[in-house]
């Protein structure tokens, strides 16, 4: 289980008078994410979703607050926690000088996997993602959908227990998007906890058991899509989202 307590992230900035100031990207977020659930983090652009994910994955340090993975913080158990996590970033960030197979090999080596295991795992995941024929291709030659699937394959190489997906279907056509949705559901059935950020409401509605709505760095509400609709008397999560992000102090 992931427990987030009073998490704050401030970035140095300058105001309109060019004086140093701080921009609050994540503002006192407290949250619990259960094992084996698909948890959505929903918010408009600039809401603080990616900053929250970066703190949860140990890429940036919080200004204040704590994150516990099964009761342990990063400071207490950094290596073990990092091995538990898989991250699919919003942007395509492959090593441009390595081919498809080498990108996966590098990831497997970084997580200390043994030679036989990593070779078998790479072949298995490439087949699973329908990329087996592309093993020796340059990553630059892959289509947008193939790159997204390869990002997911890379994040899964070391068998993470928790998978972070930051806007996994952004700029993809509907067919590829549905394929990735099916994949996410399959992973969750296989016991992987999924934390998904998105600004596609229908994506959160379809996939997530619970959703947190974030706006201006603040956590506005957490519930299942159905409970949100029932509580606010709305027909869809999109109506709930507009209601909550438009009138954040109403709850």
């Amino acid at each position, binding site marked *: 289980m992931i427990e987030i307590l009073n998490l704050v992230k401030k970035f140095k900035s300058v105001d309109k008078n060019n004086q140093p100031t701080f921009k609050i990207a994540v503002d006192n977020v407290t949250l619990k994410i259960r094992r084996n659930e698909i948890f959505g983090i929903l918010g408009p652009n600039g809401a603080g979703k990616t900053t929250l994910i970066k703190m949860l*994955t*140990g*890429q*940036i*340090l919080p200004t204040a607050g704590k994150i516990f993975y099964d009761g342990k913080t990063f400071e207490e158990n*950094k*290596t073990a926690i*990092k*091995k538990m*996590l898989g*991250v699919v*970033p919003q*942007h395509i*960030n*492959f*090593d*441009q*000088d*390595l081919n498809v197979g*080498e990108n996966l090999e*590098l*990831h497997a*080596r*970084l*997580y*200390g996997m043994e030679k036989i295991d990593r070779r078998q795992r790479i072949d298995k995941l490439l087949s699973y993602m329908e990329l087996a024929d592309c093993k020796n291709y340059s990553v630059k030659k892959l289509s947008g959908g193939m790159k997204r699937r390869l990002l997911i394959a890379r994040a899964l190489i070391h068998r993470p227990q928790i998978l972070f997906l930051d806007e996994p279907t952004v700029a993809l056509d509907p067919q590829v998007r549905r394929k990735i949705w099916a994949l996410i559901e399959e992973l969750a059935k296989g016991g992987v906890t999924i934390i998904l950020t998105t600004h596609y409401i229908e994506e959160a509605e379809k996939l997530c058991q619970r959703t947190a709505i974030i706006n201006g760095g603040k956590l506005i509400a957490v519930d299942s899509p159905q409970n949100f609709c029932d509580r606010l008397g709305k027909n869809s999560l999109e109506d709930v989202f507009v209601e909550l992000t438009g009138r954040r102090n109403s709850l």
Partner: protein
Amino acid sequence: MNLRDVATVFWRDWIVLKRRLTKFIFSRMVAPLLCLTAFGWGIGRNIQLDSGSYLDFIVPGIMALNSMNLGFHSIITVHAERVYHKNLEEYSLSPISAESFLTGKILGAVLKSLISSVIIILCAEIFGANIFLSPNLFLVLILNSIIFAEIGFYAAMKLSSYEEMAQVNTYILLPMSFLCGTFFKTATLPSAVRFLVECLPLTHASQLLRNLTSGGGILFESLLILTAYAAAGFFLSLHALKNCQED
């Protein structure tokens, strides 16, 4: 620091280099051949030195210059990885330590620098230079490339654009290339300039290499200064990497 993690980071640089090894070797032959032709056969014929030919004088200078350039330029690809491709995230998400990452990257730069140094030695032999080879010569070349790899790494972690990275070349590497005893003895410089120049690592690398290639021993004071630069560069680069990951 974990040696297996260092090997992983080095492995990445090695397979990229292996794929381009022929192109790399040919490209590394251009500058030494030009320098040896221009300064050895061209200008060098008219310069008389007490210690021997100008060609023998300039080869260690070219070696020092080359290990500086290769150390620096081999590692600054991490700047593009950090700023443009964002694939440095892959390492910061993984369980490997910053120390292992830095060491692996430095070793990659040292390997390229050493391959290039061997090419220069072979070219110099063809041009008829008298070079005394010893293990200490390679120790100095390694130390020099480590220092400039660290400078390159530090700049890559601190600077945000290609233009700023190019300025490091203009304001740090280029003046050192000409002033640090590579093409002439620092003794000929005015005392204030000489003092400044003798604080710089490339001057000590040039002096050490010149002494070693002429059959002399190691200059311990220069070796100590280079070691101090390498140690300070490692800690500064490590600090810059950790800051970069935490911002």
